[in-house]
């Protein structure tokens, strides 16, 4: 009967709302603060240094377990702390057998952080192409924004009309380089607050990667001829003072490449444990090394490479997530599942339904018995059976739903 259906729908909606909000309420009340460690590499003692911050502490350990306080650690990480050391006049003159100049140190220090949220974020597919060699040296916003369809179309923001001349100019340049329209994705860093502009990296229909810039108003288009088996999923473009590279590329199968400049090419990174939907990339480069840490919610792996991106050493560490704390374990007994709509891993709203927690069956059965003996005692029929089954599988959510919207039978 449609009325039974109407009531079941209301119960389902109550279960949905319960599964979204009750666990949320629980975590807001009980979620413990978990501060993951940060990994560095000391060129002085040639060991990984792990920084432990948070909960009022601030100390380092090396991979043998030896502890260092902050002052000691400063000396072991001179390239990172050169400013403090120089101010205290404690900066060494040479390192790893070669003299070091502070400007050189500064120029070569690079850090890039890529979080899952920033990979494939929601984006309106309109892009400003900055002039990369501006006459007055300061980067400025152009009047035109481009988009891709069967051409690279430039639209003048003042008039909201297509600038045919610019469109033809760039489209022809791209076609000359072998670009197959339309573009799959466009990657860039549309801001004026950066040391220079690297332009855009554009993926064409056949997965070829092109580098596009505007130089003195004219198009610069280069087909990067990347290998056919490399399918780019995302490029995080970050222009730094050091012009060795201008970003990090992620492929469909989660492999990582540095986007090198002069000439533009991809340099593969020896990293195998990255998942772009869950993990953070922490890239730290200095005069001697490249250290890339891939960090998820419960574990990290750091890769130490030389300046030629050859793997030297790795370091791994695990720690308990919130689900392994007391609060987390209790939650497994209360909530048979949870629905999370908003996470910090992405801007998009998704239905993230957690796997069924068998531990909650104890509570589910208890609630089922309470319902059977005390609440639903007046009605013993089919609808009653459906209610009990609902409580068995959805536990506390179903229990509340069935109480809020009582059956229409009997």
């Amino acid at each position, binding site marked *: 009967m*449609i*009325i039974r259906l*109407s009531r079941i729908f*209301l119960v389902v909606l109550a279960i949905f709302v319960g599964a979204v909000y009750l666990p949320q309420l629980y975590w807001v009340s009980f979620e413990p603060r978990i501060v993951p460690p940060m990994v560095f590499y000391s060129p002085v003692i040639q060991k990984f240094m792990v920084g432990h911050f948070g909960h009022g502490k601030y100390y380092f350990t090396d991979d043998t377990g030896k502890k260092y306080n902050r002052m000691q650690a400063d000396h072991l990480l001179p390239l990172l702390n050169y400013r403090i050391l120089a101010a205290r006049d404690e900066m060494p003159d040479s390192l790893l057998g070669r003299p070091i100049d502070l400007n050189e140190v500064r120029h070569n220090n690079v850090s890039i952080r890529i979080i899952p949220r920033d990979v494939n974020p929601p984006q309106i597919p309109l892009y400003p192409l900055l002039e990369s060699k501006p006459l007055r040296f300061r980067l400025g916003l152009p009047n035109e924004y481009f988009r891709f369809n069967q051409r690279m179309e430039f639209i003048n923001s003042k008039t909201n009309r297509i600038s045919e001349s610019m469109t033809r100019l760039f489209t022809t340049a791209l076609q000359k380089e072998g670009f197959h329209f339309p573009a799959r994705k466009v990657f860039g860093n549309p801001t004026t607050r950066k040391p220079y502009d690297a332009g855009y990296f554009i993926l064409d229909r056949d997965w070829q990667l092109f580098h596009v810039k505007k130089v003195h108003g004219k198009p610069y288009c280069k087909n990067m001829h990347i290998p056919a088996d490399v399918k780019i999923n995302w490029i995080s473009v970050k222009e730094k003072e050091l012009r060795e590279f201008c970003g990090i590329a992620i492929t469909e199968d989660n492999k990582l490449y540095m986007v090198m400049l002069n000439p533009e090419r991809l340099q593969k990174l020896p990293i195998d444990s990255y998942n772009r939907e869950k993990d953070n990339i922490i890239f730290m480069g200095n005069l001697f090394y490249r250290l890339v840490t891939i960090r998820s919610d419960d574990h990290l792996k750091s890769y130490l490479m030389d300046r030629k991106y050859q793997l030297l050493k790795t370091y791994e560490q695990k720690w308990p997530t919130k689900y392994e704390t007391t609060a987390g374990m209790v939650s497994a007994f209360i909530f048979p599942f949870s629905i999370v709509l*908003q996470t910090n891993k992405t801007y*998009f709203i998704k*239905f993230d339904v957690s796997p069924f927690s068998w531990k909650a069956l104890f509570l589910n059965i208890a609630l089922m018995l309470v319902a059977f003996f005390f609440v639903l005692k007046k009605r013993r029929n089919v609808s009653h059976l459906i209610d009990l089954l609902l409580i068995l599988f959805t536990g506390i959510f179903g229990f509340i739903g069935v109480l809020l919207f009582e059956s229409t039978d009997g």
Partner: protein
Amino acid sequence: MVKALFFKEWLKIKWAYWSMALLTLLVLVKLGLNLSYYIRILEARSYWYQVVVMGGMFFQDFLYLPALIGLVIGFTQFMPEINEDRLKLTLHLPMKENAILLYMLAYGTLMLAILYLATNLLASALIAFFFPFQVVKAVWLSMAPWFLAGFVVYWVTGAVFVERIWLKRIFIIAVAVLFTDTLLYHTAYEIYRYSLVYFFVLSVLWSIGILYSGYRFKKGVLK
């Protein structure tokens, strides 16, 4: 007979409907004026930057507007039926009671759909004057769940009014408010891209809630 029912519903919502249409028009005018103002004052390329690159949402007036309209139409349509138990007259008409309730709700839904569609078309035309199609499409997709919320609020209002017991009304309202909240996130453009279909399916479940209340009304569940 259905025509007569629709006639009755129109008589009830007439003034509210035109008022809401006028309100929407005012909001649209405000949108147009603001857009033209910002483009003039900030310079087009900087304002485009705010919108396209920074993801600034200039149409947040539409966040709660559909829900408000749904509430007002629902109120004006069902309040007169519940006042002095007039619903008994309506349900006494020679049609199946569930059919009567559903036709009443269908009428309101249809009128809301017309208003929402018109709003979207006008807003799109306005935005298309200042921005290319990519922005218009992004705005459409961002607003879609807000308009869905408008329908949900309307359906729930019907169910709440027909329900006679205050405690039950509060239950329905509580679940509905929490649910509707999940339709109104507005942190960035098009964030519902992957989940809009699921939300649509869940939202539609609210549409027959009024039959549950109607059944309880017929049974004479205690005041």
